[in-house]
């Protein structure tokens, strides 16, 4: 691959161009139609561009009809609570098992790592009943509990990270008389910053994109989240592709922006998480 032949170069760029086209084609159709009026939509081909890119009526209508302000609000509450618990519990847990030796520590860590093998999708039949017993069905904290309790990505990432922070830092702080609790929140936790950033982004995207959990656990209209709001909206508007396009774009924009600005953390996190 050191000296490229012209034919190979053409093939390389040609295949990339085709791939780019295949990836952009479906979103392009959405963009082309989200700005069309009903008449335009019926009169024009799907591929044709709209008369004006300033016709935001479909977006406004979709936002209202899909109850997206409620959906975004609920989704943000779920994401914020999930992140808070994941970060606090995950980093504290990894401080305890990453810094101290104690009996059964190996077993404890093993329990967490082994749990990755149990696919969450298989245990819902029982978890549904558990959440019902606790009384959190149709409560935003129900899914939060599942995202915090059943997923251990945060523990995996923090554990890897904390091992690379030299223990001398803890020791010198102890000599200066800092309590262990203070060492954790004033020294170790800030040093875990990059790991926290990775967790924040991966979890935000995962929770935002999840449909399965909210579909099962949040069935009431006031508990709608982005995924379920889109499903309900499609139920009322199926066939009205110009409306559906607008709604789909509204839902895809937030994670796309996050992705553009945080790509480095996303790529790192995905590679680390997959190899676990």
């Amino acid at each position: 691959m050191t000296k490229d032949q012209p034919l190979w170069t053409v093939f390389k760029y040609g295949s990339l161009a085709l791939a780019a086209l295949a990836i952009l084609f479906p979103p392009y159709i959405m963009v082309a139609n989200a700005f069309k009026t009903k008449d335009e939509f019926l009169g024009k081909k799907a591929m044709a561009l709209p008369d004006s890119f300033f016709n935001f009526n479909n977006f406004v209508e979709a936002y209202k009809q899909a109850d997206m302000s409620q959906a975004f609000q609920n989704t943000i509450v779920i994401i914020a609570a999930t992140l808070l618990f994941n970060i606090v519990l995950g980093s504290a847990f990894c401080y305890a098992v990453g810094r101290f030796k104690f009996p059964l520590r190996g077993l404890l860590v093993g329990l967490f790592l082994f749990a990755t093998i149990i696919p969450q999708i298989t245990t819902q039949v029982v978890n549904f009943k558990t959440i019902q017993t606790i009384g959190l069905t149709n409560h935003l904290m129900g899914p939060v509990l599942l995202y915090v309790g059943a997923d251990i990505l945060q523990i995996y990432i923090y554990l890897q990270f904390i091992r690379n922070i030299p223990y001398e830092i803890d020791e010198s702080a102890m000599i200066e008389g800092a309590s262990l609790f203070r060492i954790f929140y004033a020294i170790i936790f800030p040093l875990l910053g990059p790991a926290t950033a990775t967790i924040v982004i991966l979890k935000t995207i995962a929770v935002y994109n999840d449909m399965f959990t909210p579909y099962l656990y949040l069935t009431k209209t006031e508990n709608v989240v982005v995924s379920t709001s889109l499903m309900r909206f499609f139920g009322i508007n199926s066939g009205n592709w110009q409306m559906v396009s607008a709604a789909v774009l509204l839902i895809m924009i937030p994670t796309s922006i996050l992705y553009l600005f945080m790509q480095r953390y996303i790529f790192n996190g995905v590679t680390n998480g997959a190899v676990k």
Partner: protein
Amino acid sequence: MLNQLSISKQRTIIIVAFTLIPLLLLLTFAYYPALQLIHLSFTDWDGMSQEKEWIGWDNYVEVFNNPDIFGVFRHNLAYFLVGIVQNIFAIYFAVILKGKLRGRNLFRLLLFLPYILNGVAVAYLFGYVFDTTNGSLNTVLGGVGLPSDTSWLGMKSLVNYTLASIGFWRFMGFNMVIYLAALQSIPEDLYEAASIDGANGWQQFRFITLPNIYKIIELNLFLTVTGALEVFDLPFVLTTGGPAGASETFVMKIIATAFQFNNYGLASAMSVVLLVAVVAVLSVQRYFLNRGND
């Protein structure tokens, strides 16, 4: 204050306080359900009544003998086959995006983009592409003189492959990023030495790149298998299992059995079968991954 206590007392407090809640959550939402599933799978519980009858292996007999249940795995096969092709493409794009290339980062960014998009949104995105009368794919095909009335999501023989191709679109970039990370960890001097010895591009790929990423290929293939076993959201949103159940997947069956037909016992047995299948696949994977380390 805490720092009045001795370090060893502080240690004990921290170990207990910091591990207790995560451990309780893990036991409640990962281990308890796994064990409870096994217990329920031997009963006829309807999900509500106080009583559940112990019925032995009846549920498992039902899972394996009823073609409506076990036969559904046939539909999952399409996702597996398309997943293999998806991995080949992922390796190809990882290889060319690792080399010198104009716009490399842009292409990488673009190819990975589908992975971070909302699954429901992606489903409708393709709902429009594959729509028979208004769909853009048929419009394009008609434009170049090919048949333009294919019912991509309405034909029993086609529907699973259509859905799996959406999975291809969504996850190829994810596989690619993992391959790319593996490729970047191959020492550059191996390639330099090889090109001094006169190895061409293909030979370098065949004898340096491939052997160095075998483990990652294995990893990705296992992700493909477990992913194919657990397919749910695309068919659920886009076809709700239709036409005539042709695109139902095993997980969809479990959800319907439990939450529509209130047959928790049978749904538990199905879950256990899926759980065992995934655990078996992952154990084989760990065995292969660890084999080289010893």
